[in-house]
């Protein structure tokens, strides 16, 4: 069993209200020195068999078209064995 991890985050120029809310809360909880907080999503795909380049290419396409919205988000794909 192999796991493919897709991380999706908002592009830096897009406002992240959840990150901002966390940032505000951190201050109230006494954690100083945090300049910025961004919240992202993570998808963990567990595959039955092994991963080859064809599958990775397919996952990459799905990450781009389904798991992220390229207008506002960036993504990365990595294999976690």
């Amino acid at each position, binding site marked *: 069993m192999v796991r493919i991890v897709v991380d999706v985050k908002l592009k830096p120029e897009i*406002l992240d*209200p959840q990150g901002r809310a966390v940032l505000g809360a951190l201050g109230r909880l006494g954690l100083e020195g945090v300049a910025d907080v961004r919240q992202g999503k993570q998808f963990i795909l567990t595959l039955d068999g092994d991963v080859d380049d064809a599958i990775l290419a397919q996952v990459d396409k799905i990450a781009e078209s389904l798991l992220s919205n390229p207008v506002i988000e960036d993504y990365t794909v990595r294999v976690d064995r």
Partner: protein
Amino acid sequence: MSFRVGVVTFPGSLDDRDAARAVTIAGGTAVSLWHADANLHSVDAIVLPGGFSYGDYLRCGAIARFAPVMEKIVDAANGGLPVLGICNGFQILCESHLLPGALTRNDHLHFICRDQKLKIENNNTAWTVDYELGQEIVVPLKNGEGGYVADDYTLDQLEGEGLVIARYLDGNPNGSRRDIAGISNQAGNVVGLMPHPEHAVEALTGPTTDGLGFFTSVLTSLVKNGQVAV
């Protein structure tokens, strides 16, 4: 004969019956379309209603975009078929790249349901011809992810070409860039709107009947364009 307006039901669509009712009150014939259909049943216009298609757990509209019916709708919209996306429908139109930009989590992080004042900024689209330019209307707004975003270039372009069709008045309810409540494509046949005109078509159940204009507009413009023989 009367105009056939398709209302698409995806699993998780919620306002499909409301949209159909609005079409009927406006004088059209509502035709229900199923997400798995690869056939538009020769409708003259289409409404993508509000709701949580496929649960909207991933990103609103992200999964609906891949529904078989959407392939046909994208082609038809590019060919000039009037399409109105309301709320979740707007999100689906953006995800399908029929409209630019995206809709993101409300800046206050809460779902919000309230009666919202809007200003009509373009009465030249298939869905807004029955309004006056600058007309102020009140219709319900209800969403958790209604903040319209696009890069500055796109926003400037939308504004420059008059493609913002409605803006929020009396307070921006969700952090939308430039108070944008709805936009259209260049041809004016595809319109996306975050607030819900279909909930403002009867005095008894809506805050006003101001929303009816969207549904009468499409009938008016169909006649004008001679797309349907009366």
